[in-house]
């Protein structure tokens, strides 16, 4: 070997070689780092994914609008107040107010106009009904009026197009006289143009063929009728007819194709329009004017100039004497005249007067009333027997029938319980009357960044639904039991199950595990074959799949030890039912066996860490082995043992498979006892995850957060314990 240097790269070649090695070093370092990042990234994505599912928008469709329950209740209250006259006949209302010095009430604006001399108009929040205040909405008791026809009708029947055009040109002439508020002139002109484009230009009235048949709202009846009469006056030769069946019924019939021209005191809802479309009725909507309700009093009631909506609520639905509203008012009874029950006017009134009152603001008595009005009789009676609605008396049941039921062999639960409280009644209204149904859910990310699109989509797909932000993790979720309704489901039973199972696990595995560890560390001669077997065996057990433990638990605890685990031995099995071993005890013991190796191994480590000097010190004082262990070694090792045990417990909290095998996976609605069937959080998560409906995935996500928080608490306490221990020693 003459020149060994040459056998290694030199100069430029060396530089290249080193560069190459350095470059590959950098690349690989990056690869290693990336791998590490994958793990971290997964953790982040996992957490984000859960949070994304646990919060977000939902489209919630109530069977009954909660606010309509409030207004319905208030309407009832209004018409059933003392000294109150209710009628659909506005002339009669006006007459009552005129005749009572302390009278106050509502009449259609048209009626006020005809009796303007005998009635005193009162402002609402300082606003009188005028063309402006009604048009811009600052006067609350006003609503637009519409006429409808189908597009086909408009195009094929010249009489309809002619009538519409006539209506739009003349409504503002006659409407004012009739007490209506006039529609905006340009709007009217635009609508005339619309008719022209849809149905062609105007034609001579006497040449129009066909007849006209109107139906629908009674509020619009006077105007439409006047228009019909004027139309005939102006030369229309066909037959005319008009009916008043109310807006609601009118729209329904119109969408079936049964009505030629519809009068309506409110616009069609999106859902109604959709029904029309499905029936090939293509509605053309024309606004013709506005209707207002005037609040009027007897002329002598001069202390009232203007009232607020809140005061109106007091006047019409709460107080009986004027001075209760304001001490400066006279001590006179309030005499009221309000539109009759079921009329659109009353609906309009209560809708605006009580718009700020939510269902949750009402009293318990109001809830009972709402339940009486809205719940079916059979269902109501069943619920009343479960637990009474009222402390005194009954809503659906009768005293005698109830007493009879209570005297029977199997008395209903309601006999022994106090009546439902306000919260209970409210829950009941939610579950039985409002019945919220989740139509669709959206994840958090979309809810934040695509809110507009979601709201649009929801209003198209579920016109009656409310889109609201929902945290699936909420107090109700924690305290509600399991339910098949996603909206009502909670994890209380699962949390209880977890707590009780883990408590059982702890009570079993902690003493046994620590005992085994003490034996192995303090007593056993580790060179003896049998002790070696125990030690090897423990490490082998730690590697056995958890599901195998489930099968062990199923055979030993659920079947073999049935009398013990079902509680039969302790008289805990109800007469006539089969004892079942699928109980909290069985589950706890199964998990106990599962985590025993972990506890033993950790406790052994903790014991091993205790310096031998402590043992010698104890023995040197003449203590026995057990005394030394108990009073010197164990206390020193305890923090370590506890830390290990807590970590083992958190393993038990998350275990799922063995408990499914032991038989936990059933729907449990009542809180478990040690000898009852049960469910636990992870199993709840498993069940919800396995359901196809997306809202259950949201529930699963919320339950996962609860589970992870429990685990976090456990682990944090282990860390604190470990730190305190290591700083003190």
């Amino acid at each position, binding site marked *: 070997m003459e020149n060994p240097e040459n056998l290694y790269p030199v100069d430029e070649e060396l530089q290249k070689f080193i560069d190459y*090695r*350095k470059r590959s*070093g950098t690349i690989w*370092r990056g*690869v*290693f780092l*990336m*791998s*590490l990042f*994958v*793990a971290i990234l*997964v*953790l982040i994505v*996992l957490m984000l*994914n*859960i949070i994304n599912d646990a919060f977000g928008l939902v489209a919630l469709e109530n069977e009954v609008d909660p606010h309509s329950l409030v207004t319905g209740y208030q309407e009832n209250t209004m018409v059933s107040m003392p000294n109150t006259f209710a009628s659909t006949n506005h002339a009669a209302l006006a007459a009552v107010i005129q005749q009572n010095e302390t009278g106050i009430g509502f009449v259609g604006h048209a009626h006020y106009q005809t009796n303007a001399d005998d009635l005193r108009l009162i402002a609402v929040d300082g606003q009188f009904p005028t063309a402006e205040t009604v048009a811009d909405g600052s006067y609350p008791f006003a609503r637009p009026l519409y006429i409808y026809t189908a597009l086909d009708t408009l195009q094929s029947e010249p009489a309809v197009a002619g009538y519409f055009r006539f209506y739009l040109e003349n409504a503002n002439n006659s409407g004012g006289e009739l007490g209506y508020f006039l529609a905006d002139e340009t709007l009217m002109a635009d609508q005339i143009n619309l008719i022209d484009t849809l149905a062609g230009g105007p034609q001579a009235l006497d040449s129009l063929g066909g007849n006209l048949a109107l139906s629908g709202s009674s509020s619009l009846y006077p105007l439409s009728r006047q228009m019909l009469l004027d139309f005939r006056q102006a030369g229309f030769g066909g037959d005319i007819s008009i009916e008043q069946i109310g807006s609601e019924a009118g729209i329904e019939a119109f969408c079936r194709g049964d009505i030629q021209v519809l009068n309506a005191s409110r616009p069609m809802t999106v859902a109604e329009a959709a029904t029309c479309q499905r029936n090939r009725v293509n509605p053309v909507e024309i606004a013709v004017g506005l209707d207002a309700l005037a609040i009027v009093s007897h002329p002598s009631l001069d202390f009232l100039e203007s009232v607020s909506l809140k005061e109106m609520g007091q006047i019409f639905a709460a107080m009986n004497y004027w001075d209760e509203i304001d001490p400066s008012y006279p001590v006179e009874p309030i005499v009221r005249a309000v539109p009759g029950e079921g009329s659109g006017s009353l609906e309009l009134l209560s809708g605006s007067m009580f718009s700020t009152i939510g269902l949750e603001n009402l009293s318990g008595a109001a809830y009972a009333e709402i339940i009486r009005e809205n719940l079916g009789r059979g269902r109501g009676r069943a619920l009343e027997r479960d637990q009474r609605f009222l402390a005194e008396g009954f809503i659906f049941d009768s005293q005698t029938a109830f007493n009879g039921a209570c005297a029977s062999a199997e008395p209903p639960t309601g006999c022994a319980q106090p009546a439902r409280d306000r919260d209970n009644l409210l829950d009941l209204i939610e579950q039985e009357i409002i019945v919220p149904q989740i139509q669709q859910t959206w994840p958090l990310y979309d809810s934040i960044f695509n809110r507009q699109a979601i709201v649009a989509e929801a209003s198209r797909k579920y016109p009656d639904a409310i889109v609201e932000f929902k945290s699936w993790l909420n107090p109700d979720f924690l305290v509600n039991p399991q339910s098949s309704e996603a909206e009502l489901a909670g994890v209380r039973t699962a949390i209880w199950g977890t707590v009780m199972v883990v408590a059982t696990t702890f009570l079993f595995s902690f*003493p*046994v595990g*620590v*005992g*085994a560890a*003490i*034996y*192995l560390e303090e*007593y*056993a001669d580790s060179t003896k074959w049998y*002790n070696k077997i125990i030690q090897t*065996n423990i*490490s*082998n*057990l730690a*590697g*056995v*799949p*958890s*599901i*195998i433990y*489930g*099968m*062990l638990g*199923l*055979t030993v605890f659920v079947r073999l030890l049935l009398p013990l685990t079902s509680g039969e031995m302790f008289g805990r099995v109800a007469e006539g039912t089969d004892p079942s071993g699928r109980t909290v005890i069985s589950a706890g013991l199964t998990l106990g066996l599962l985590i025993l190796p972990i506890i033993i191994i950790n406790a052994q480590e903790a014991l091993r860490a205790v310096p031998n000097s402590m043992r010698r010190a104890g023995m040197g004082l003449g203590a*026995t*082995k*057990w005394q030394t262990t108990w009073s010197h070694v164990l206390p020193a090792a305890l923090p370590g043992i506890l830390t290990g045990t807590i970590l083992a417990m958190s393993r038990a909290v*998350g275990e*799922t*498979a063995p408990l*499914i*095998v032991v*038989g936990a996976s059933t729907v449990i609605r009542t809180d478990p006892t040690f000898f009852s069937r049960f469910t636990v959080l*992870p199993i709840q998560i*498993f069940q919800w*995850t*396995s359901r196809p409906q997306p809202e259950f995935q949201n529930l699963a*996500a919320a339950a996962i957060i609860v*589970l*992870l928080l429990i*685990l976090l608490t456990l*682990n944090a306490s282990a860390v604190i314990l470990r730190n305190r221990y290591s700083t003190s020693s």
Partner: protein
Amino acid sequence: MINSPVHDIDLTEDVALSLRKKTKWHETLIQGALVACGILSVFTTIGIVVILLNESISFFTREVFEITNKSIATDIGPADTTFETTASGSTLVVGQIVRVDDELMEVLAVDGLSLTVERGIQGTEVSFHTADEEIEKSVRVPFREVFTGSRWQPRLQQFGMWPLILSTLMISVISMIVALPLGLASAIYLSEYASNRTRSIVKPILEVLAGIPTVVYGYFALTFMTPFLERAFFGDNIQVFNTLSAGIVVGVLIIPLVSSMSEDALHAVPQSLRNASYGLGATKLETALRVVLPAALSGVTAAFVVAISRAIGETMVVAVAAGAGPRNFEWSQVFTNYGETPLNPLQSAETMTGHIVRISGGDLSYNSIDYNSIFAIGLVLFLITLTLNIISRRIVERFREVYD
């Protein structure tokens, strides 16, 4: 016993007694209790083995009756021991137990279509049978079929465990493809490159990952991984339940295990070896991959083996995300049309653990074939994982000897 007087103290009876070795019964009792605690773990193992074996034996020795498509040709009364059968269906052999209605008979002789039997065996009631009543024959669960068959439907007398085994292997392989490289690479980074600060941040994160319950990973597989794979790679080709997504997530779940065990092994390699390598002019990468890693190979291998065992025993992720129902197949498909076998990672398939969970999740009757069958599966599972764990510990023990 000490009995020589010390100094001038009178040796009274009392002192002598107090120095005598006493049987401290409560010490003995306590020690006995501690021994019992230690032995409980041995009983646990024995319990597992006995139970799995016992139920598996019930599985293999259980009588199931299979339809023969053969029926009685003429009415037979309680006294008739020879009767004609229809020509169709499978042939019966002497010694076979057959069942007609609820009555069991043993075939004593077969002569063409005529059958001579012993009536009412095993305590069943001898009764009258009309023509056209079905003859069922008793079959045992064929031991061979269990380990060779490719269809698992115990209620339909199909006992091939391979659909379950194959999908278990499939999940394991996929998860190992994910977990081993990522886990090992993370371990190398943590052990050889990372600063103490990085290590003190990253290791708790890995511990958190390891502490998350597996059912949460199942949720992750179903609600994130599958939609992600669908959108990013496979579109409609991937089913909602599939082994790929379950396998990947099982892999992710195992990363902390692989990484922490491997890191321990890498860390145990003495610093002097690294110094030697650097002293020769090796780069960090060359040192890590070609000196440290080979030196820690047995520890790393042990980590891998434990990881495989863990993947095979993993339950909740596959129960949630891999699908329900064994993917039965024909062996010939493995070569011709593997897409229809459990080897297709884009389709649903049920693993051993997934099957046990699903079967036992319903209300299971203790005498059913299903009940026995899950213990047979459990036994196979137990044996596989036990073997892997023993192998792994052997490897670790050997590896300790090298450096101590």
